[in-house]
């Protein structure tokens, strides 16, 4: 797991990597992973999504729900380097603006 370096400023905090298949099969595991990432995140929750392979409904929900949770904890979610597969799915669902807008993309 990523150990954030307490001394480095938030901007340069290493983004949390979320890769592979973001699907129902790993949904529970990924939820825990994301909750932890959020717990250790500072100011922003940065996700590095460059290695996302397959993503299904459960995966999309997970991202949207993470965004909500991040907002609750006042550590806004920033999705960085979305993989082409992820971009395609979010485009189809018209979620690009919602998840990939501004900060990270």
């Amino acid at each position, binding site marked *: 797991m990523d150990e954030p370096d307490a001394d480095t400023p938030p901007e340069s905090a290493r983004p949390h990597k979320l890769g592979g298949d973001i699907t*129902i099969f790993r949904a529970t595991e990924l939820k825990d992973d994301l909750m932890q990432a959020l717990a250790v995140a500072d100011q922003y929750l940065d996700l590095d999504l460059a290695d996302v392979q397959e993503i299904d*409904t459960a995966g*999309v929900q*997970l991202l*949207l*729900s993470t965004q909500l*949770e991040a*907002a609750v904890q006042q550590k806004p979610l920033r999705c960085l380097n979305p993989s082409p597969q992820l971009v395609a799915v979010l485009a*189809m*669902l018209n979620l690009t603006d919602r998840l990939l807008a501004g900060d990270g993309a």
Partner: protein
Amino acid sequence: MDMDMARDALVQEARELLDAMEAALLQIEASGADSEAINAIFRAAHTIKGSAGLFAFNRIVSFTHIVESVLDRVRTGKLPIDAPMLSLLLNCGDYIAQLVDAIAARVEEVEPDPARRAELEEQLNQLLGEPAQTHAAPAPAPVASAIPAAQTSVVEDPVNSPYWHLSLRFLPDVLRMGLDPLSFLQYLGNVGTLLNLRTLPEGLPPLAQLDPEQAYLGFELDLQSEEDRAAIDGVFDFIRDDASIVILSPHAPMHEYRTLLALRPDPQMLAEVLAQGTLTADEAARALLPPEETVESVPVNAPVVMTETAAKAPAARQGEDKKGGYEQKFIKVEVSKLDLLIDLVGELVIAGAGASLIANRRKDSQFEEAVQSIAELVEHIRDAALNLRMVPIGEVFQRFPRVVRDISHELGKEIDLVVTGADTELDKSMVERLSDPLMHIVRNAMDHGIEATEARLAAGKPAAGTLRLNAFHESGSIVIEVSDDGRGLNKARILAKAIERGLVTAEQSLAEHEVFRLIFEAGFSTAEQVTNLSGRGVGMDVVKKNIESLRGEVEMLSTEGAGTTVRIRLPLTLAIIDGFQVMVNESIFVIPLDLVIECIDLAGLDGHHDIVKLRGEPLPFIRLRELFELPRLEHGRESLVVVQFGQQRAGLVVDRLLGEFQAVIKPLGELFSRIKSISGSTILGDGKVALILDVANLVHQAVQQQAAPQNSKAAGSLASPQKSNG
């Protein structure tokens, strides 16, 4: 074809809801108004309206809408729920049921009873009265104007959008079931171009509260496509049962959008979503308003209308919640699928019997052991599969509170209904066929059995009669009893009538139960006056025929002056039984194992004239060899199988006992329908056919022969009297 299935589902759902509505109304009548019951009634009406709207069954929609408006006022306490209101609502429920029947019969374009409808609508509209109703027209004409108004507004008024609109929501469990809504959307791309897609994070919680395997997302989208509805609909074949999928055609009439909004938990929000693409802002706003109010006219009504919708929205949400919970607990399965499963299990049982036969011959103990454990599993699968078809008999019983209420009003008798054993289970196919005979028996009991109040008081009985429905399991059968505490059967009168009809002669001396059995003879009715309830030519003989077609039996018990009980005894299932194989010459017969009491070596018994003395008691018996006219064998020990049906026992004489066996019952052809001693056939492990004995009938034959050997009428068709052959 898909449309047909959807239609069936709608009809079934509507009937269930109507039943629930009726039960709630009767509950209110019995124990006073309670808000839970009133809400249940409202939800039922609301859901029926919603589903019917999806199919544009406008007759139901427009009628139910008025009912719903009245219910809404009841719910908010603006109208009292008193006896006339209850009667009116019950009648409205009946009329909706007629409309549903029309849909089931594919004649929804025809109003089943316009006069009745007008009458009910008038009463409803009177209740709605001045405060907010639509009919600006002065009093006398409201009914006439109501129907056309509702219909014109409903039929016309297409929206602007040239695209299909799809609204998709999914059950929480779809992901866990391996279905991915996303893949259906991707596949939909093959049918047309997705436009204005909106992903609705309906109720999606922040991550901390997220159940990551539950489906939350819903979708609203437009589809530009040249395909027809069937092609678009077909995309969702695999997920349809686990989702709510609404497909609206290009330029769909406004009311379809209206229904869609009503169907979803948050119409306001959805209307806003739709306004961002699918609909114009004006259309979206209009879709939020109830239909009648939107017909050009009266802007004066608008504010009232708004409050009404606002009041409805939470109710709709509540309804959805309830429904969701229900759907998680039960899945609806088409009966034909269950039948197929049971057929296959039947084949499995036969194939298993074949395997164990081979195992026995091989004398290979490991093989035998393996086959044995498979056989055990097959037995479990069989029981589980049959269990799927078992439903509580309460499904039939639940009709009766209403029936008893209506008939007792009509007859001016006070009758209490007591239902016990409603959770006793029996085969679904029997439930359906049991309903009519039971109805007839219940009507009979109320009409002829229970006396008028004065007569009851004169006889020292409580003024209110009691009708009991009871069900329980007993040795492989289900027993259903309908009892009343009425005047009982008059033995002398039945006998006199039977003699008059030539059914028996005056010299014959009949036991009490034999006299009562005469009631089941064709064309027998002792009612001195024919009322419009029973005695309409459909007699107890039809009841008996119906029950016998289910391999069951019906009997009468009665004490004059104290009441009558009609007892129906049915086998638990119609498909597979545990059988006991016996052999006569080379033929194998199967006896339902539940009915076998014991097996005895006949040689040790003293048997004369078809009666043996068993432990000091006489037991009538039948030789299967003679019954089926099989050739006599030289020698051989014979065995006696003692069987019991109901309270009566008889013996069957066979050559050999072969042991237990699971028999898959195959019906007999038309050709054999007159043979009384056989109820079906089955296929043995080695492929041979064995006949299944109709024990009920054989026991009767044996007992009758014992009682009246001289009465030639008593012997069954195949059973030539023993003397001739022996």
